[in-house]
């Protein structure tokens, strides 16, 4: 079995994470790879379907050295798209999502579909017909225990399967979706990099809608470079997505960030950050925040400061209202988007019990919808339905939209780079270039703890939703370990369209953490233990 490890040289030490995967490993057999991924999967439950054969239409494309997992709410023509829901248990889409099409065209190998919370609703990847995802991370405190018997913690959600697949080394990168933190939170919990791009950059055609105005396709990967390569290959204008940013808007945003980017060279070991202004939002350090997380973030800030970056306190005063506004808007849109799952045209239909009253169509619909949707989805449909009723619309839905507008204004007045989506943005020379905050208020919770029930899961999103409401790019990169030995992530938020900038800063943080935490980083990808675990299993 140790031989296998050599077949997968890309499972290299974390210290090499920043190195391009394309040069760090050679081409390998997809079939053997699938077997390997399946065995790793037994202990993570990250992937839920695998291709029977590997048909790569472009084996010499720029992504041909890349293995990718696709979140199960992104449509694929050759694999089922269940959204982890009983409603779509047997559903296979008649088309590929644009993002998948682009990956295939680039020559990427798709290794399978990744587990997720049902329709993307959840923060811990426990709401799934496929069962919960188990975080592959093996804490240094548990070094003596085999990997397969490690502490069972959540991988985060809703893109938990995508994050776990990357963290366990089943693939180089994974596509996820992020509606209110669904990429950033699992990236943080699993100790990998996760990018939620600016809203509208990656086509949503083929992405099963949860909340259209918030849903973003994003990338999870081992390193910022991997994430960047994948992002660049799928971030293009798609006329099939009516919310796609036009080439013109993309150009405008790019031009605005250009001058700053040209001064930063993230590839240098000691990049000069003296032109960079980093905002530290006071609202993002609530009392619930684990103190060791604050310590880790402070460490990151110290390093950035030592490279010349200016640290500037900023205020985003509407932040406290963001979570409530987010849940109203996301649930309202979800109640609308999920109305189509009625068992009439496609998907699962649960036959009525004999003698049931069929005189009202509502009874027939209610039966299928009650049986097909999980508890969390039903809860949100009910909340969203209520928010849209004539009596509640003004107080809930419209009020939430007002809050959303305020949050956007907060960000626009904090940033120095103007918002390319506005026709006449006012200049803000005193603004900051990026905002930095912890990705989550804690490390991954145990799957059997209280944190996975009650209000806990909703609070996980508190740091992530403002950027979602404003449609801003955010990258979460690993930033060391908390006292419990589990990974911490920091988030870099930028103005709309500053995706390259946030990844650039992300890379600087990644490089500097590698330097500091060499031995610790080894532990994050405690690969030898993984292999031992496999040996024990076989």
């Amino acid at each position, binding site marked *: 079995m140790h031989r296998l490890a050599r077949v997968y040289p890309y499972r290299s030490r974390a210290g090499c994470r920043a190195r391009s995967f394309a040069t760090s490993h050679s081409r390998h057999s997809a079939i053997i790879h699938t077997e390997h991924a399946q065995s790793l999967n037994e202990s993570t439950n990250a992937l839920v379907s695998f291709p029977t054969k590997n048909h790569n239409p472009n084996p010499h494309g720029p992504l041909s050295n890349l293995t990718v997992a696709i979140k199960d709410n992104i449509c694929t023509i050759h694999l089922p798209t269940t959204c982890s829901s009983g409603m779509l248990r047997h559903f296979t889409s008649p088309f590929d999502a644009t993002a998948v099409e682009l990956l295939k065209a680039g020559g990427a190998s798709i290794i399978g579909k990744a587990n997720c919370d049902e329709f993307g609703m959840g923060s811990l990847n426990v709401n799934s017909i496929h069962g919960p995802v188990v975080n592959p991370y093996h804490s240094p405190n548990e070094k003596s225990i085999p990997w397969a018997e490690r502490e069972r913690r959540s991988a985060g959600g809703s893109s938990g399967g995508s994050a776990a697949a990357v963290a366990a080394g089943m693939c180089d990168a994974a596509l996820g979706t992020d509606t209110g933190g669904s990429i950033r939170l699992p990236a943080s919990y699993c100790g990998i990099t996760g990018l939620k791009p600016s809203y509208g950059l990656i086509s949503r055609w083929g992405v099963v809608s949860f909340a259209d105005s918030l849903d973003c396709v994003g990338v999870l990967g081992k390193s910022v470079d991997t994430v960047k390569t994948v992002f660049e290959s799928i971030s293009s204008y798609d006329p099939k997505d*009516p919310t796609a940013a036009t080439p013109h808007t993309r150009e405008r945003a790019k031009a605005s960030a250009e001058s700053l980017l040209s001064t930063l060279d993230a590839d240098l070991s000691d990049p000069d950050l003296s032109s960079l202004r980093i905002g530290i939002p006071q609202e993002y350090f609530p009392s619930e925040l684990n103190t060791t997380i604050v310590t880790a973030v402070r460490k990151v800030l110290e390093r950035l400061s030592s490279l010349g970056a200016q640290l500037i306190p900023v205020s985003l005063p509407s932040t406290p209202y963001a979570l409530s506004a987010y849940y109203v808007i996301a649930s309202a849109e979800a109640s609308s988007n999920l109305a189509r799952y009625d068992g009439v*045209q496609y998907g699962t239909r649960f036959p009525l019990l004999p003698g049931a009253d069929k005189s009202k169509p509502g009874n027939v619909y209610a039966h299928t919808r009650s049986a097909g949707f999980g508890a969390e989805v039903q809860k949100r449909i009910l909340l969203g339905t209520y928010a849209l009723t004539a009596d509640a619309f003004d107080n809930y839905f419209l009020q939430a939209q007002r809050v959303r507008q305020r949050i956007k204004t907060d960000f626009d007045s904090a940033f120095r780079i103007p918002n390319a989506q506005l026709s006449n943005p006012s200049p803000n020379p005193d603004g900051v270039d990026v905002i930095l905050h912890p990705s989550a208020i804690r490390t991954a919770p145990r799957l059997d703890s209280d944190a996975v029930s009650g209000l806990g899961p909703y609070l996980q999103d508190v740091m992530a939703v403002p950027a979602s409401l404003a449609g801003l790019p955010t990258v979460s990169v690993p930033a060391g370990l908390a006292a419990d030995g589990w990974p911490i992530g920091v988030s870099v938020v930028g103005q709309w369209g500053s995706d390259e900038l946030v990844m650039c800063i992300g890379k600087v943080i990644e490089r500097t953490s590698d330097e500091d935490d060499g031995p610790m980083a080894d532990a994050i990808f405690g690969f030898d233990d993984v292999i031992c675990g496999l040996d024990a299993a076989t």
Partner: protein
Amino acid sequence: MLVRRCPWRSIQLRLHQLWRPRQIHTREAIHDKRWPGWQVIIGIEVHAQIKSRRKLFSESFTSRPGETPNTTVSAFDSAFPGTLPTLNPKCVELAVRTALALNSKVHYHSAFDRKHYFYSDLPAGYQITQRYSPLASGGYIKLSKGDVSVGITQIQLEQDTAKSTFDGLRRTSLIDLNRAGSGLMEIVSEPDMRSPEEAAHYVRTLQAVLRCVGSSDGNMEQGSFRCDVNVSVNKHGQPHGTRCEIKNLNSVKFMMIAITSEVFRHIELLESGRSVPQDTRGFDENKAETFKLRSKADSPDYRYMPDPNIPPLLISEEYLETIRKTMPDLPDATLARLLNLGLSERDADVLMAVDSGREVGFDGELGKDAVTYFDSLAQQRDPRVVVNWMTHELIGQLTARKETFSDNPVSVEQLGELIDMVQDSKITGTSGKLLLKHIIANRSSSAPSVLAQELSLEAVSEDDNTSTRAWCVEAIEALPDEAEAVRRGNLRVLNKLVGKVMQLSRGRADAQNARVVLEDVLRR
């Protein structure tokens, strides 16, 4: 277009508009013998299918009546997960044409909303419509009869539903998604009509306008034009009564019967001291009466929500100007223009009547239309001569062949040359008619001058009396009795001999000349 704006401000504004009490229109009281003392108030909501080639938000073709079920359906139309809408600009253009034709104010900014309800003919569980900011509002239409003008409240774009039919034998509902997602224009009138007849005039005038601008077939029987009618009654001088809405009326005749029966039902209720409950009602064609579908209390909450996928529809003044310039004239404007050219009202009516029955093309492409044909012909020609050839000869011959104007095989160039040849006496009028008949019958695309030569139809020139003289001699020999009568001084019989000459010459001889030659020959 892609700047995503928060739509709540416009929503709030709109909510207030919706709750504002309806403005009461003052019109002189109409005394109807059927219901003395009572005033009838009617408003009509029309759903007209947009005659676009493709659906409102998807690439699939719109279907024609009789199409095999479930053949013009895309993944979006059947609400497959992961699909997104893309607004079809052709539908917008046709709705804008309609709005301009109805003197409506097209908004520079309008938006789409979702209306939710569960039904098997609505695959997404919601219909995309324009609840909070419609495409256009205000406007009016002058009815074709009487001096009545009906106000237009608003015009909005929305999706059509699928069609469900109940198979009683198999006790199953069958769903045809062909229609799902086709574009509809909802045209809401003010409550400005006062009798079933006015309602009928409104519907007919609106149908004519839609056909004229090419935005809809306007066909009630085939379901491309559906009416929901609001009816209320009140005593003269009193405020308006409670209205009831009658849904899905599919012919003008049934609409009038439904309104009449509803008026009597309301009066009966009111006269017996009861009140009219605000119901939504259906119409039973066999019993000629309405029946209750649901009361206001059971009216569903549609949970309207701004559609988060479709960016606001922004329309510029330049765009409106282009549409205004390129869209077809309205019937009133066309009539005025034709009369101005010197056409008689009768001739103008004939031309316009030809067009009112023509097929409306997809995406506003107008089929062959008689007025445009006339306009091209009348350039540099006498409009009155042209209209004579068109109405009497061209349309006359097509009608005799049971063909319509859309079958017309004669090009503008052909008929133009033909008219010119007759006007320049290169051929006689009789030959011209013969030539036209030949072109229509043989679907010939040759130039009339070439055909005239081939068929030896060129007029005999006045100088060439040899041929005419020969035909005259032949005619006299053929009709000796008539020739004798003329010789005796009965000049009226001469016409018969002229006719014979024309027959022998196959119309090539000039009748006036033949008369002179005949008289000359007979005098000898």
